[in-house]
């Protein structure tokens, strides 16, 4: 039986990789993928704790998070398509229309 703290460390590693991806990459699609990685790390945490307690509430919250991730991916990719049509680029730091 694998102890819960191992799952915590795994999810910590995944989350850190996701943060690194969001912070250092310029490509918007890869930034979105890194956000998905971070959401997955949180899901692992929730399910691990729910396994520890023996209840299914962590599963319910993980399902809500997956729903959120789907919604966020749909809207984010729609924004990316609209943006690419206007500016012909995928770089995050070119998105400065709202910057003064």
């Amino acid at each position, binding site marked *: 039986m694998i102890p*819960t703290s191992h799952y915590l460390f795994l999810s*910590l590693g995944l989350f850190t990789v996701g943060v690194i991806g969001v912070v250092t990459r310029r490509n918007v699609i890869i930034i979105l993928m890194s956000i998905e990685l971070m959401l997955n790390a949180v899901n692992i945490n929730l399910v691990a704790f729910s396994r520890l307690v023996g209840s299914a509430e962590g599963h319910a919250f*993980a*399902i*809500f998070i997956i729903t959120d991730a789907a919604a966020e*991916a749909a809207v984010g990719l729609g924004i990316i398509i609209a943006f690419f049509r206007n500016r*012909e680029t995928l*770089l995050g730091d070119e998105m400065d229309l709202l910057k003064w």
Partner: protein
Amino acid sequence: MISAVLVVTRRNIVQSAIFLITALLATAGIFLQLHAEFLFIVQVILYAGGIMVLFVFVIMLINLDVSLHQVQFNRQWWLGLVLALALGAQLTVAIAVGRSGLPLGEPVPATMLEPSTELVGKVLFGEYMLPFEIASILLLVAMIGAVVMAKKKV
């Protein structure tokens, strides 16, 4: 874990997406290990199926050749890397120190668990009925939003 690192470091976004699929399937395997069969199925069908199809579709809609020749990392990437690693180290220390204080003892033995799909259904439609409905409305709004965004003329 390894494939997650590759997601972040690959230059080509298609390769990145493939490695993301691997990472998601690995997560699904961990769910299975944790006796969360329903989440395993949801992860495989929804994430590795639905969301990744969306990603790959958008990657195909977008002209790839341009982005291959651009610089793929920020100008301040080293600062971001250092800060993110600092965050990771901090959380590691927090877990390692606080592990003894948490009741992380023996999990409930697997033989005592109810079938997880049934349990999830009971929790989702009993206690969390209202959040469930709100989530469905959120999905509807996201769908309309995505359609409006992707339209040619608003």
